[in-house]
């Protein structure tokens, strides 16, 4: 019986009931990410053992999907909607503004892992365009100036909640 670290044992418990050749890999990765916020190298190994797959196979699947992370999530994850309806409403300018204020590029976190912008995909709420999801919360009818107000609050060290409040305040006040 090999020695198990506590973390390994925890991950194994999380995967209880999942078995090889039973279409369970995505479910396993979802469970790990839900619990830890990302899929670590250790988790990939444990998932592979549980499902009878090489770690490389699990790694291949993990990195294939946009939703699975291999690094801990940042404090603020901005999923910028890349859909067509948002694009018609000039969402590209909003992305450029966010990138400029936060000094990051789409898909690349800042060195301190405080924030990250990812591509969000259209879920059919186009009446709210242009939109984004900030830590899974819907932020609707964004304008460049409001995006900048939000991002500046983040860059100045505000929490996600505080930055969203700044955004909402800019909505109520008409303009920031």
């Amino acid at each position: 019986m090999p020695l198990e670290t506590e973390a390994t044992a925890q991950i194994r418990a999380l995967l209880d009931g999942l078995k090889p050749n039973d279409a369970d890999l995505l479910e396993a990765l979802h469970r790990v990410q839900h619990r830890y916020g990302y899929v670590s190298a250790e988790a990939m190994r444990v998932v592979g053992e549980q499902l009878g797959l090489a770690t490389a196979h699990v790694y291949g699947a993990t990195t294939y999907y946009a939703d699975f992370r291999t690094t801990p999530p940042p404090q603020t994850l901005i999923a910028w909607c890349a859909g067509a309806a948002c694009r018609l409403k000039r969402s590209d300018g909003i992305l450029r503004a966010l990138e400029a204020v936060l000094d990051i590029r789409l898909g690349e976190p800042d060195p301190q892992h405080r924030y990250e912008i990812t591509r969000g995909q259209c879920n059919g709420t186009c009446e709210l365009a242009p939109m984004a999801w900030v830590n899974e919360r819907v932020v609707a009818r964004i304008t460049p100036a409001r995006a900048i107000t939000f991002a500046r609050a983040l860059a100045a060290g505000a929490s996600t909640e505080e930055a969203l409040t700044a955004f909402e305040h800019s909505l109520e006040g008409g303009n920031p």
Partner: protein
Amino acid sequence: MTTEASSAADSFAELRARSEADWESWQRPIRPRIDIALDTSSISAGAGPVRDAIERESRARTAAVDLGRMVGVGLQWLNPVVAITWPDGTRVLYGPVKPEHAGALLDEATGRVGAAAAITIGTLAGSRPGVPRVFDHPFFSNEVGRRLLARIGYTDPESLEHYVATGGYSAVQRMLTRHQGPEAIRQAMLDAGLTGRGGAYFPAGTKWTFLATAANPERYLVCNADEGDPGAWVNRIILEGDPHLLVEGMIIAAAATGARHGFIYIRAEYPLAQARVKQAIEQATAAGFLGTGVFGSEMDITLEVIRGAGAYVCGEETGLISSVQDGRGMPRVKPPFPAAAGVFMKPTNVNNVETYSTAPLILRNGSEWYRQVGTERNSGTKIFSFSGDIERIGFTELPWGVPLPSVLEACGGMSGGMPLKAIQAGGPLAGYLPARLLSELTLERETFVPHGALVGSGGIVFIGTDTCSVDINATFADFLEDESCGRCTTCHGGNQRMTEIFRRIQLAGGRREDRHNLELVGNTLQYSNCVHGQASPTIMRNTLRFFSDEYEAHVHNGTCEALRCTGFSRYRVVDQTDPRLPRAQAICPTEAITEDAEGYRILDERCIRCGACEELAPRGIALEAAPAGTPVPRERAYGSPGGRQR
């Protein structure tokens, strides 16, 4: 009838009687009930805080009112919506509702009718003087009676009883107890003319026969609920609003094909749909509709939900299958088709949500009934979702063949009276057609095909004249590159090249040979293994054919009429007297606005063309065409290169 079958029939009759009583009391409640629409659109628009506010206010008043649940009926620009049902059966829809309307809604519910007049949309049941019927709204003018959406707005989406009370599971119960054979079921689908609603429109009955006649008796069903086309959300409406319809449809497909297990693959972006379908499966299992010996028959069928994790190409059936069976969603070359080698290399039938969900309607009402609407070549109805630069964004269920001008009219026309420029139907693989073809187009594949486009899966985006075709191409090429699985060099390389070329053109770097190279890339892409690569050049080809002048203006004249492309536009201070210029200067994220003795000035080489300054000082700052050679910060011109090919 066997003993098991007769006792199953008795218990179904009992459930049905109980359900009918339950639904009757929901339609005519003892005291008024306020149903809050809880679907993704309504929740995104703020249904949660609305529910909390109504709950709080109701408790504070100790009002004799109950709260319930529903889903929105399609008028998404009026979200979030709620409906009040009174003891006499009158049901009225309200929206857009804000938390501060809680008091007015409670007044209205408890008898001060008219208190919420400002947000009254119309009646869903019964009548009220001066209040129109919801379905008389012009947005629904092309509908001919709801079939797939019949329960939307009229039941609690989480209630098995409401589904059963409205005829649910009666088709499958009758099918199994009367020993309607698999051939008869498949024939009914063929007679009805049901075709695959995912966009390929292959006859469902024929596909089911492939599976039914497969040599291996271990067979699977797969439901493709990986609805990834931007602007299409027709499957979500069924998954969130009437999940048992899909479950019943898959039981019918299982009976018709001999499959004993089904996977419902739902995309990651639809967590509520995943939860509702899981719950429906649990309810159906507890009721004996799923499991072993369903309805007392000899048939076994189980269903499970697979949660996707964000990959567009998993909507391609072989990509979806490889994603289900433990791995990356890598499509592969066909044949072998899934009917021969699908999940775990076993015979498999893959259909879209709407295709399975139509089966119960056909079995219950007959093929003749199904064909009563639609056209000669395309029978029945389909759900469509409408978005883009239109006044009314939402979904409706329409018969095939509705002229597109009527559709646009129902959508309230273009927002702010902006002229229509293009129609983008069916997602990034299906096409991009000019406004001048509008009068030739109907909601039928056959009217799109001669122009090199498709209707696709049901999302229709109307695009106004302030959008640039080159920008549209750069956007979709970038999407297709990002979502390529990376297996075929033609696809990942081709889409990379297409993205690079369009981005370079956007930065005023277009070259004479670009058109030729784009055509070359298009020809190469079509040799990809799956439809993702094969159809990737569709929008580009449509553009070069129908928007040739606009394309050439970018490459040869150095102009972007819509002023969308960063290489052809710049912001300029046009009125130094605008008192909001200091705020515009302060908001600029790149310090591109300077002030000197002559006033404010915008430095092109710093300006990222985000538009924040014009938003704050619309009189003082304007977007205008940039003369040749105007600098633009290239490194900030786009988002990252992206790409799934790791």
